[in-house]
């Protein structure tokens, strides 16, 4: 393994972020490589680590004071083994080639895991939208798309939003694409609802994490019915996680924000959830107020001097970390297991530290890593493409149903993959292997291209 990695490092010695991503994937798929000598034979790793195409381009634009500004645009078309490149555009001053290659590399396997026919890519620019006027953002987006448009298309490459690219930017980008290509096709996802966007986008991640948990339980003839669930966070992901837990008959008892968490033993019912949504989305208050409104709940203030989070010490069946990175450390993982939690489904991105993951895997609980459990967002992007291709706009119910179907297939892929490699029930190995083998097999099938 190190020989391949060394070659990759030698090629671009300063792309540290990218090397890190490659190293992590290599570590997780070691058993696959060991068992399939043809992968090494066909230099699969070196091929994977080399983007199919890297486009770097000039983005000149004029600011509001009439001064010319020049940014650098990128599109990394990493792999189209399973379908058109798909991945977000990021506008942020930190954007550079190494970071985008790192993100594109991860995106390839993430997308493969969804079981949808989409490849992987990533793009963006070192443009900083902070402090820019609408007009400046529009001029930048138009200039960016004036080059990018010739490289993308509904069957070639379908970018989406990412940091710094929201509904406004997607609108400007789409407008310019349409103008230059004289085509109104599904070339971007994240579009406005009135012009090709899909429903269930804000809900997708939270719903998906619960669907995945339900699938895990189903393997032992269980269900979410009657399960007590710990949910961290109180944003979109957490709110829709609670909503889907309620739909499936479970009971969510916690929510949190950066100041602390509430524990409502009686369960967060629909009325309380609606109140939380208003609190967080409209009033933008603190979750502390929940305990004032509903005296049956207990509020615990965050304490930075503790080396664990007391939220994870509450007795429950399932945990849905939906707040932030590294919110569950080794000690928290121990506390969870000790208190009877046997399902952990990650709605947030990388909420568990490596120690915590090891502990979950060692104790053989149902642990769904983020790359599988929070794939709902990518899945709905895929569904937006499907709707555009069919020139249809599905109802909420239909999108939700499809989402559930996708989460089910992801689950099946994971279970099959880990079973195949003798790691039954290890969803971490399953997710890593399933995504990887799908891409690699497609590459082998399609010959040396």
């Amino acid at each position, binding site marked *: 393994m190190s020989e391949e990695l060394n070659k990759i490092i030698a090629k671009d010695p*300063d792309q*540290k*972020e990218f090397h*890190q991503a490659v190293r992590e994937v290599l570590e997780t798929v070691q058993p696959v490589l060991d068992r399939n000598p043809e992968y090494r034979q066909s230099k699969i790793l070196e091929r994977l680590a080399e983007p199919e195409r890297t486009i770097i381009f000039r983005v000149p634009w004029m*600011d*509001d*004071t009439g*001064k010319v500004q020049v940014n650098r645009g990128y599109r990394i078309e990493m792999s189209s083994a399973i379908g058109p490149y798909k991945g977000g555009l990021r506008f*942020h*001053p*930190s954007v*550079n080639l190494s*970071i985008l290659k790192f993100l594109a590399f991860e995106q390839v396997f993430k997308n493969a895991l969804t079981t949808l026919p989409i490849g992987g890519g990533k793009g963006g620019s*070192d443009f*900083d*939208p*902070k*402090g*820019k*006027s*609408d*007009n*400046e953002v529009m001029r930048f987006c138009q200039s960016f798309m004036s080059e990018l448009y010739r490289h993308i298309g509904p069957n070639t490459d379908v970018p989406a*939003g990412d*940091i*710094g690219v*929201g*509904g*406004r930017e997607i*609108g400007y980008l789409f407008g310019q694409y349409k103008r230059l290509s004289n085509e109104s096709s599904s070339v971007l996802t*994240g*579009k*406005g*609802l009135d012009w090709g*966007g899909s*429903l269930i*986008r*804000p809900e997708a991640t939270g719903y998906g994490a619960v669907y995945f948990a339900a699938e895990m339980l189903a393997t032992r003839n269980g269900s979410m019915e009657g399960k007590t669930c710990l949910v961290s966070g109180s944003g*979109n992901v957490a709110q829709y996680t609670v909503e889907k837990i309620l739909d499936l008959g479970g009971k969510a008892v916690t929510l949190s924000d*950066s*100041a602390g968490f509430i524990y409502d033993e009686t369960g967060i019912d629909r009325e309380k959830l609606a109140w939380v949504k*208003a609190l967080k*989305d*409209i*009033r*933008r*208050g603190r979750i502390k107020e929940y305990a004032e409104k509903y005296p049956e709940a207990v509020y615990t203030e*965050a*304490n*930075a*001097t503790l080396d664990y989070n007391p939220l994870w010490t509450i007795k429950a069946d399932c945990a849905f970390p939906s707040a932030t*990175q*590294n919110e569950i450390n080794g000690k928290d993982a121990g506390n969870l297991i000790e208190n009877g939690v046997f399902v952990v489904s990650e709605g947030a991105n990388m909420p568990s530290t490596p120690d915590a993951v090891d502990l979950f895997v060692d104790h053989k609980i149902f642990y769904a890593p983020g790359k599988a459990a929070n794939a709902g967002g990518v899945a709905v992007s895929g569904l937006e493409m499907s709707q555009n291709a069919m020139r249809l706009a599905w109802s909420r119910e239909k999108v939700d149903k499809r989402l559930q179907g996708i989460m089910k297939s992801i689950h099946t892929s994971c279970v099959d993959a880990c079973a195949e490699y003798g790691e039954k029930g290890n969803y971490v190995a399953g997710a890593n292997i399933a995504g990887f083998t799908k891409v690699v097999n497609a590459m082998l099938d399609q010959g040396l291209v």
Partner: protein
Amino acid sequence: MDKITQKTKAGPENTQSPGFQVRNILFVSTPYHLPGLKADIHPSPWEITHAASMEEAAARLPKAAFDLVFIEIEALDDKTGMTVQHLKTLCPGLPVILLVQPGPCKNRPLEQDADHIFIWSGTPGIFHAMVRFIEDQFCKDTTRRAVLLVEDSLEYTSFFLPAVYKGIDTAFPGARRPRLVLAGSHEAAMDQFRELGNRLDCVLSDTRLPWQEKEAPGAGIDILSTIHREMPGLPIMLMSAEEANKTLAQGIPAPFLDKNANHLDQDLHEFFSSLASERPAQGREIHAKDLYPVQTSPAGLTRIGNGSIGGKARGLAFLAQTLNRRPDLGTAYPEMAVNIPDTLILCTDIFDDFVRDNGLARLTGRPLAELVQAFIDAPLPREILRHLETYLAATCTPLAVRSSSLLEDAVTHPCAGLYKTYMIPNNHADPDIRLSHLATAVKLVYASAYYKNARAFVRSTTVLPFRDSMAVMIQEVAGSRYKDFFYPAISGTAHSLNFYPAANAKADEGVLNLAMGLGHTLAQGEQSFRVFPKHPQATPQFSGTRDFLEKTQNRFYALRMADYPETLRFGICSNLERRDLAQALEEAPVKALAATYMPAEDRIRDTWYCRGPKILTFAQVLKYGTPPLTALVNDLMTALAHDAGGPIELEFTADLPDRSGGPWNISLLQVRPMSSPRDTSLITKENLDEAVCVSTSTLGNGTLETIRDIVYVNPETFEGGKTPDMAQQISRINAELAKTNRRFLLAGPGRWGSSDPWLGIPVDWQQISGAGAIVEIRDGTIHADASWGSHFFNTITARGVPYITVNPGASDRIDLSNLAGCRTVRDEGFIRHMRLNRPLLIKVDGKHSRSVIIDAGKADNHIQDE
């Protein structure tokens, strides 16, 4: 403390006559101070000519026979470099008094050529006292009796001058009142004593004084002991800021005056009263009608009383003057009508009388509730109540009762919001209840001068003897009523100098902060909308919809107009109510100023009229110029800064047009000079040489002298992929430091607060909440663009935390490895916490975006070495 530079010089021709009287005064100051001066010496018995610069003063001097020149020290800064000496050569012998603002003036090169230097704090009667002092000095009547004041500090002399004259008038009424003689050292005091002998009426002396060219702690005791021995019947008093000297005073024996006492002037008054009681009464005439005359100025400012109008009202007087001089300012935009709300001012003498007559000064330090109750129980003079009643008869809009204290808004002490502001609905059916509400509000503003934090502030200004006095402004509140609440659509503050520029903005283009509702949101530093008035479309605080959702204002303050208790709630927030934006969604200001977030599309639409959470973005005003508020504010800032001779801060409100259409109503509430970077953070060449950190790209302004703790990322243990661990370690150190409320210097590579762990340490503000200054080091450890503090922009701008970017190279450098007297408190591996035995000196020159960090301990060692 600055010593008095006292020089006796021959006066001009007319000063030679025994009855020298000042008639013509030349006042040299930047235009900002003129209205304040006029108000403070109103009614003026002198002919006053104003010169806006030293150059103009020089031109005016030969044209009229001036008896005295006052120079406000800011006026010495004009580009011509003309000095006091220049003026003196033009008109030899003409007395010149230099006026300085209260506050630290150690950086100021005080001009040695002035006859006297005094502090102009707006202490009532200071001008009359200064003029009388000059008259006394040039009095050649050798038979006239005298009071000797031995004092060497500039602050105390400026404080005692009017107080002693007041005492003289109490103790020695009549035509032949003694004159005041000053001595600033042991030698000078003894010389005066020998010369004046039995013509002395009394002697007051400080304890610690220069004696034989050294500061002698017991000089005053020696002076008074000698005097008492030689003239046992002469009234004497020992003064000291050190309470321990009280016993020494008893040994002389002499009464003792504690200079730190809160009732200092009252004690002084009692001393002179005791002198009076020892003399036969000569009868004093008091005309009640003269006590509180009401004068109306053309600007809609009405005053009651004869004292100073206070700092805040001075600003208002200046504002009125500028608007009067530049009528086009208020009329350039037909969409907006500019006005200054009608204002009634109760001058400082009313406060002083109220406190004295009711014996309230003795309550200093008592528990808050007792203090407040005593103020409420004390009656306002009937005369004042009658005035207020007349005022209320003509006014039925809500009123703001604000403090306008002497120190408040002084140039060197921007302390807006230190004292209380009370708002009253003023709509009760019973006029007596309305009057009682107003009287209570006035008394509560008075009481706030005795609150602990207010007194701590006064102490912190280094002008110990200036017990602050307080004028009160009663101002109509600008705004409209929405059901049970009253508030303006927009409250704003504009600063003509911006210490946190971003994007295309430049420091001298200024910055604007907007909030919906009453300005309490801004005063409290709550979430507001920051905008650069030359680039109103840009939103420096926000980089995406998430930012808008999390960081825009969602609560605001309004005045409750109905269902209030008869006695009003004068406690928390004084009848103000903090309302959720969500409660006011159907009210006109929200409809006019809010945008809507569309969750399904992750975008914001600049209109209230669609479904989704509302976000206050002020888009209508800022993006679409309806009305062009930023253009108006630009014009106002430029004009006011020009007239004030330096950067200013302006407070205003903008209220929606009424239903019949018409213009927006723009009310200008206050203007004051911004503290000048020159005073606070001038970076010298020596600073640059001795600094352990130099940056040429720093946000912020001012000087920090209290930080002793340094939390920094250890470059030796740094690992690129481990930044989230570093964030955890910092968080733990921060929590520990928070327990003792210690602020620290945070230093490390990369973009602080980056969400991407490869580009910087991904801390959120709560994890570094105790950071008093932040250093972003760009030495190649992390490859990333400078963040310019963008991840914490709201917080650092609101708290004035300097964000120091260091690009090691030609002009920038940082080296924290060799700090003298530094010990490691905690080493977490990646992060180290060090504590110095002395605070660092952090100087930020906001005008030029430069900063230095100086190891003050090292500098001291350096001096000792020499």
